[in-house]
């Protein structure tokens, strides 16, 4: 465990993250990057961008509370120090996605109202399940919920958004690329640290598996709300029309072209990708993946 955790030291984090892939960025992207005019000038696209970004802020606020809350529940110093870096990573994500809301025209004094208005209630329930474990100082359940389930979901969502925006919105894609690198490190810690704790405390398995199933249900419900609402189709059509005018190229993810898919196909692809990842990662730490109900 000692060697594994040495990869997650503050020193390693300083060299790879702030002094590495974030060097020269401002709020996660090159300072010259701007939100595309077509998003800022089109009410439908701008509202869609705000709605999507609010979900990212909600998820990252949950991750900030969870990672800071888990520090005092950690069984060893190296884990505490890793979680300190994760706390600052999550705070940075809150900051850069909040900044994106400002860049999209949300006024500072309206921020909380906008988040309240657009936050998906199923995503809030997803977060509550995790934060209940953190409040109880349950380190094993908290890290599985945070670093495997929440981060696993974030990783795939960010990757899909990144691929979908590379050509259409390089600023947002750049912002996402730093967070993807962070999430990869967080997921790696979750897998590497929890496996041995699960072996030491096998009695925790049923509770952790139930938590995963419940969280996965609310995650799927969030996806369903995001992709199936009538608004999603309107935004999709508008984006296609505008991107076509701009000559934006295909956006490949998981072997599919996102630019030609309809919202329900995208929902299915995202859900299947995340659930497959859950199964693989949970299997590696000795937890049996539980298939959630489909909303």
């Amino acid at each position, binding site marked *: 465990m000692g060697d594994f955790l040495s990869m997650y030291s503050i020193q390693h984090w300083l060299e790879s993250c702030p002094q590495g892939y974030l060097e020269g960025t401002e709020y996660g992207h090159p300072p010259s990057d701007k939100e595309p005019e077509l998003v800022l000038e089109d009410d439908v696209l701008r509202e869609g961008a705000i709605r999507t970004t609010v979900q990212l802020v909600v998820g990252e606020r949950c991750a*900030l509370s969870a990672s800071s809350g888990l520090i005092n529940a950690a069984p060893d110093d190296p884990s505490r120090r890793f979680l300190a870096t994760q706390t600052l990573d999550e705070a940075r994500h809150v900051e850069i996605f909040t900044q994106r809301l400002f860049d999209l025209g949300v006024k500072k004094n309206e921020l909380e109202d906008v988040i309240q208005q657009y936050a998906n209630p199923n995503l809030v329930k997803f977060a509550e399940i995790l934060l209940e474990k953190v409040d109880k100082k349950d380190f094993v359940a908290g890290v599985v919920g945070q670093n495997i389930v929440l981060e696993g979901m974030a990783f795939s969502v960010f990757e899909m958004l990144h691929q979908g925006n590379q050509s259409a919105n390089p600023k947002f894609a750049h912002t996402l690329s730093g967070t993807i690198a962070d999430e990869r490190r967080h997921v790696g810690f979750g897998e590497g640290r929890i496996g041995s704790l699960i072996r030491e405390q096998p009695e925790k398995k049923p509770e952790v598996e139930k938590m995963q199933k419940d969280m996965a249900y609310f995650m799927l419900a969030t996806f369903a709300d995001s992709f199936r609402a009538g608004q999603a189709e309107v935004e999709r059509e508008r984006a296609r029309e505008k991107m076509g005018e701009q000559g934006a190229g295909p956006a490949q993810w998981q072997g599919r072209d996102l630019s030609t898919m309809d919202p329900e196909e995208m929902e299915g692809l995202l859900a299947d990708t995340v659930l497959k990842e859950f199964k693989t990662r949970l299997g590696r730490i000795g937890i049996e993946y539980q298939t959630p109900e489909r909303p």
Partner: protein
Amino acid sequence: MVSGEPNDIHDMDPDEFRDRVHSFEFWFEAVRGYLSDKPYGHRPDLEEEPMEPSERDQLVTVLCNYALGETAALEGASGLVAIAPNRATKLFLATQVVDEARHLEVLLHRLGELGVEDPEGEIERRASPHLSEFRSELLNLVAGKDWEAAIFAQNVVLEAMEFSVFQRHAQNADPITREILIGIIKDERRHIGFGENELGRRLKAAPHNLARLSEVRRRLDPMVLGSFKDVSAEIGLPSSESPELGRSYLSAVERLGFGT
């Protein structure tokens, strides 16, 4: 992360402080200058100064107590994120969490450089009882979700205590320990600035809280002064100068408006 050096935070007005200091961007600008070429807090080419075994042993005791203080600070700061009254404050505390964890890491690394094989065990063996008592009291305040009292204990009392000791120790420390301490002191200044700003605004709005915080201070002072006494001999401070350390701490706290 591409703008210029931040101003001295102690010169900022409260509104500018809230807008600028409570952010990852500010934190990164602040630390990059003094951390980028110093893995584990010091330049890699700094040579170890020869030390007598007794000097080395004294230094190990001191560093063990610093590590205990930084552990308390890490636990305190991470607990404070949950009870912070607003998002900007949570962001600042997240930067403080990583600062405290870095301090702990560089001190543990320094103990390793000095040949300590089991830092955890040494910290337990050599810990000042007064500092251990302070740690418990701080964590009780955080667990009790008393924001003002906890931020006072963490960002005023603990940070002022560390600031006073580290600054004094840096004057006669070996070159490697000195460089590590100087880096830590720079962070402590930022943390004290936050505590001062946060409590200053709150006390302006609710002056009756000053009496309550002064009472917290009266409870904590003996633990702080006891900790000084426990470590002062180990940092090469003549007994005649030991009360000076206590006075330095007391005047730092009083400068912030928390008289006895």
